[in-house]
């Protein structure tokens, strides 16, 4: 009798224990419309089967994610268990106690996680701050230069270019070459008196597009960051002004309206064959490669972004950008959240994602022969990541981005001179970095 009761109790406990596992539910916020998200949704059933955790997956447009995440954490309701964090927010999230440190979790499951497998530059940009692991990196993007191989390899173009500029037509190594090439390709190809081919796209809508595309030039022009070691602004220098003036001078070689372009317009323009070059984030590679969305599928390639020589050294400065997972401090399901994060930053998931053309964060995946065979271009992307720069680190990053982005936009559209724009930005920046 007693044994029967005991075994019944045991059975009940087991059932309760198992069903508790099944009833574990987590809420995840992610950026809307990412290819990685697509892969995640497809692998979600596998995750649930392995761990018994069901996932509520909420995708929100990028522009609204940070607002939603910050207000939600401060509301302290445990609304979300996993948040997706852009690398530029990491400093703020860490310093303001928005996410919990993950160092202990990582060391506990170190074998499974294999943290050293993450690309070093990526870890610095979107994972570790002051020796603490705050976020787990999932996506790592870097700016690169897309260009039209058919235009660059055309014999007439090659000889015309050599005659006009005195050197060979190749993907530009320096910003001066970039400008020459942009000028060269801005032309009327149909003979109707209207320019229909442009040298390059530009993506300069306020504020963060303006900022990130100015940054790649600013960094290589000045070989310095926007803030110094004490987080004080140092961008209002002759080099900074020169970089901004350079950007403004590209206006005539870009299609009309670029001062208001977001990613969408510039990739649409390049994919439709409107420009010869397109400095953009590598993540758009699949878009250009897909016959459903691109007319230039076999006619383009990718190069590293141009740079500037500083004492015989060519300084290229693609910006790094990406997304990582963090666990909000008010989450009530941290263990389950961690399981999710492990899975979605794990090797199996990333291999799957990489084969589909998504931009992952693990060295082993980028050097995996199978992946490289399918996407040989990943080799270049890895190189870009390894020479990449990260954007300024401060809690009030959003304000700094807004200030500098505003200055870039103002100078570009002629509202004021580069000097004036940067000066005003510096005044604001001084207040922000007080």
């Amino acid at each position, binding site marked *: 009798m007693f044994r029967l009761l005991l075994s019944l109790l045991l059975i009940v406990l087991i059932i309760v224990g198992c069903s508790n596992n099944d009833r574990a539910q987590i809420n995840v916020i992610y950026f809307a*419309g990412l290819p990685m998200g697509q892969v995640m949704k497809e692998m979600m059933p596998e995750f649930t089967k392995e761990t018994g955790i069901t996932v509520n997956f909420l995708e929100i447009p990028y522009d609204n994610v940070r607002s939603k995440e910050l207000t939600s954490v401060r509301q302290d309701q445990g609304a979300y268990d996993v948040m997706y964090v852009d690398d530029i927010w990491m400093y703020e999230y860490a310093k303001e106690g928005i996410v919990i440190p993950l160092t202990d979790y990582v060391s506990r499951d170190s074998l499974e996680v294999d943290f050293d497998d993450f690309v070093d530059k990526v870890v610095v940009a979107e994972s570790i701050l002051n020796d603490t692991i705050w976020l787990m990196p999932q996506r790592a993007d870097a700016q690169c230069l897309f260009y039209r191989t058919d235009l660059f390899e055309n014999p007439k173009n090659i000889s015309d270019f050599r005659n006009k500029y005195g050197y060979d037509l190749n993907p530009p190594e320096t910003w001066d070459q970039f400008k020459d090439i942009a000028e060269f390709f801005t032309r009327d190809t149909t003979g109707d008196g209207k320019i229909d081919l442009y040298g390059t796209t530009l993506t300069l809508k306020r504020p963060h597009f303006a900022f990130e595309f100015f940054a790649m030039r600013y960094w290589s022009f000045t070989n310095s960051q926007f803030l110094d070691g004490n987080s004080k602004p140092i961008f209002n220098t002759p080099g900074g002004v020169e970089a901004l003036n350079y950007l403004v001078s590209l206006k005539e070689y870009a299609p009309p309206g670029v001062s208001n372009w977001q990613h969408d317009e510039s990739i649409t323009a390049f994919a439709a064959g409107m420009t010869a070059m397109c400095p953009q984030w590598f993540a758009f590679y699949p878009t250009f490669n897909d016959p459903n969305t691109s007319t230039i599928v076999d006619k383009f390639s990718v190069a590293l972004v141009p740079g500037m020589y500083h004492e015989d050294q060519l300084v290229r400065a693609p910006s790094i950008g990406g997304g990582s997972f963090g666990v909000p401090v008010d989450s009530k399901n941290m263990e389950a959240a961690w399981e999710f994060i492990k899975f979605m930053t794990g090797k199996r998931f990333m291999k799957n994602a990489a084969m589909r053309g998504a931009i992952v964060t693990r060295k082993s995946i980028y050097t995996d022969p199978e992946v490289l065979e399918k996407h040989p271009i990943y080799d270049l992307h890895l190189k870009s990541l390894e020479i990449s720069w990260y954007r300024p680190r401060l809690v009030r990053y959003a304000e700094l981005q807004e200030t500098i982005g505003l200055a870039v936009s103002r100078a570009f559209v002629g509202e004021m001179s580069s000097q004036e724009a940067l000066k005003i930005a510096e005044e604001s920046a001084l207040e922000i970095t007080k």
Partner: protein
Amino acid sequence: MRSNIIHKSVKTVAISFISAWVIISIFPIFWALLTSLKPPIEVASMPPKLLFLPDFSNYKTVLFGGAGGFYSIVQEGFWRFLMNSFVISTITTILTLFLGTMSSYYIARVKLKSDRLRFWFLSLRMMPPIAIIIPFYIMMKYVGLVDSKISLILIYTIFNLPLTVWFVSSYIRTIPIEYDQMAAIDGFSKWSGFLKVIVPMSKPAIITSALLVFIFSWNEFLFALILTGFKSKTLPVLATGFITQRGIIWGQLTATAIIIIIPIFIMTLIAQRYLSRGMTLGIKR
């Protein structure tokens, strides 16, 4: 003779003006409709294609979810968002009309010494969302109404009361006081007089208000974004999901926009029946 010609030419100008406006109104929406029926690669083609075979895959993806490579957003629960939006908009409209028409009656009939009451109503609409969204959220948290449809219904009602009150009260003011008095003489209480006489006579204003309130609630974005989580997410929040970091998925965005506008279109057509008061002058008993 001369006045006839003037009359005719005025009429022609007037009709052309309104026709032009109809074309201007419908053109962008028509363009969105066309775009929603195109595959993504046609979006930037110049000159823009006008004749092509319609392709409904965008609609299929939005409504039922779909694979479609990297350019589709698998939509789970489109119907849930639709339901949420519908419930919120309907209840907001009913609540706003209920409170609003009653208040309009008071304002229209009671000769107030100052305009303060009317102005106070108007001021409810003046507050920009940022200032009150956080304290409102705190209030909702206090009563446990976070991520609920009720929180949106309440705030939408507050925003739409000014419109309803001002509009309907202006309309009621044009109803001669004799009708109220006749109703009283016939033995109606204030309330039944209001309900059975004034309200039916104010149909154009009430129905128009209903339409405006419904549309507002159906399309509102900011409060819906911040105040809702999973349970009460609405259609506008869904629609903006197509603005992604890698670009705007035009085909599906326009398809969603068209889908969102169809219920309003149908509703407006139905509402037309009640917008015109007709020539009845007698009081129906």
